[in-house]
């Protein structure tokens, strides 16, 4: 279970998150919607420990452990995974090596044995197949020369291999066609189990047709201004955020 209480954070001394309260119980998928610039990505970064974001107040715990005092790699070992809105390119780093290094780092942290190249490749190929990704994506350098859609799929591949207990997907559906969208939804649905939770940041109702959330929250100016069931997403699709913005003003 993820529990966020009064979380406030700034970047370059500019307050972005201004007191977030959010609980995602184990086994649930919650969607976060909201206009550009409202702080959605910031929330994902703060939870995963990006250094340039300074937490100025509040708490965030995952299964009772304080996330905010942990290093990013410790959070990953604890089961957190962030699918980046804009995945980072790593020139000179082979994708398969990158994925294996990450998986083995997490296995090590859990006291599990590391996978050798052969074992890993078998696993990775099974996942790329399931995600309908071309095998050559494993051979290329991490995200270098990938199309927007390929980058997003590569995030889903990482998630599928690392099998997190809390996945934060930051607009992983943006710019994807309907087939790719289903792949993303399937990727998350495949991980669904009682101890898995997900926070899905999206602008589109479409994804939520395949990945039905337990709750939908609207983030505006660094605060959650409304929460509701899956119908809230449908409502926002029709009416937009104008009303909420007017209310907040």
């Amino acid at each position, binding site marked *: 279970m993820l529990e966020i209480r009064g979380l406030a954070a700034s970047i370059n001394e500019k307050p972005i998150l201004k007191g977030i309260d959010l609980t995602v119980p184990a086994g649930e998928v919650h969607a976060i919607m909201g206009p550009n610039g409202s702080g959605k990505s910031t929330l994902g970064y703060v939870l995963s420990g*990006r250094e340039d974001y300074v937490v100025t107040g509040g708490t965030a715990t995952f299964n009772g452990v304080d996330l905010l005092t942990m290093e990013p790699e410790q959070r*990953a070992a604890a089961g957190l995974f962030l699918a980046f809105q804009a995945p980072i390119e790593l020139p000179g*780093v082979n994708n398969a090596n990158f994925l294996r290094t990450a998986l083995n780092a997490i296995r090590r*942290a859990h006291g599990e044995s590391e996978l050798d190249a052969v074992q890993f490749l078998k696993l990775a190929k099974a996942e790329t197949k399931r995600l309908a990704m071309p095998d050559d994506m494993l051979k290329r350098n991490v995200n270098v020369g990938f199309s927007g859609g390929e980058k997003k799929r590569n995030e889903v591949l990482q998630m599928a291999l690392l099998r997190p207990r809390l996945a934060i997907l930051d607009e992983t559906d943006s710019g994807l066609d309907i087939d790719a969208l289903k792949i993303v939804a399937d990727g998350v649905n495949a991980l669904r189990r009682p101890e898995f939770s997900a926070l899905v940041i999206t602008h589109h109702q479409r994804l939520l047709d395949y990945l039905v959330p337990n709750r939908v929250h609207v983030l505006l100016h660094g605060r959650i201004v409304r929460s509701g069931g899956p119908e809230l997403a449908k409502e926002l699709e029709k009416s937009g955020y104008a009303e909420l913005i007017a209310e907040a003003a």
Partner: protein
Amino acid sequence: MSTGASGFLERFEGVLGKLPGDSALRAAAAAAFRAAGLPGDSRGRRIEAWKYTSLRAVADATFQREAAPRHEAETILAGLPLLDAPRIVFVDGAWRDDLSAIPAAGFARFAQQPDFGTLTWPDREPMVALNTMLAEDGAVLDVPADHDGGVVQLVSIAASDADFHPRHSVRLGKGARLTLVEVSVGQGTYLLNTVAEIHVAEGATLTHIRLQDEAATAFHVSTAYADVEAGATYDSFTLNLGARLSRTEVHAQLTGKGGAAHLNAAQLLAGSQHADFTSVVGHTAPGCQSRQTVKNVLAGKSRGVFQGKIEVARQAQKTDGYQMNQALLLSPFAEVDSKPELEIFADDVKCSHGATVGELDAEQMFYLRSRGVPEAEARSILVRAFLAEALDAVADETIRARLEAAVEGWWERQAA
């Protein structure tokens, strides 16, 4: 025993009559060396080409010329990541027939007396003057026209605390090919001051790979002159990992239409290591191409130097010159000095140069760490990636793998 330039000169006077070869040339070199001194030594002249690198520590060191080898050359040789290919082995600057396996085609031989070639100007570079003064032997590779010489390794092992001045000559006839892999290693406090004269005739291709992994207390100075004729290619890559102080100097002259010179390098330095890569590329014929990418990874208090000069003569139209110097600083105390120079007298040319100096990218670091990779491992992945891009310049996969292994070795030494 005197140290510094006068120590070398005294020794020269002592052996003058016994040295093989052209004594007038040696005397001229000695006069030039006497006038110049060791670069950076307070007793010597200030030399612009040695602005960032001082050999003062060489001047202060005492080299025991007569010392018996203190280390087992055979053991050092056995530990080298050599290729399954012919090798020419020098121990303490002297050809060791028993350790060598010369190419069956017979194009390689030992020069009992230095072949001073035609390309060098001993009075221009003080360390070349010193080499000309004291050189006793070297390797001669004469690949006949249209012959493919395959891969030949030139290994230098230093086993004594002495100074060595090998003089090599590499000549490729028209349309010939050769991959020359130079490896220099050693143990102790020594000076290796190599000069190589290289001639790549019309349509020939020389691939020249150098791995400098000298002892941490050693001095390594290497000067190469490459003369590249029409349609010929001189493709070089230098990996500098070792030595307390190293200077790699390359002079490439593109003298015929459509020639190409690639002078790529990577330097990995830690502690108080200093490595200087200096190049001068002369375009004297039209339609030639030169490429230089020099990457430095600098940890600790190390210092990396890149000086690169491209000279384009008036007649060298359609010259295509490119030069890039990149440095990754892993510590706030590391330093890089970059001095690119373009001297262009032709009007229809494409020449560019650039330099980047940076720390590891914070976003890339975060991306890796967010996937569970610990900070130290994430750093090493990104540094390796930076180097991998440099090593991409080495086309031969087997050779590239050997260089990668040497980089791994360097990395392990830093972790130890």
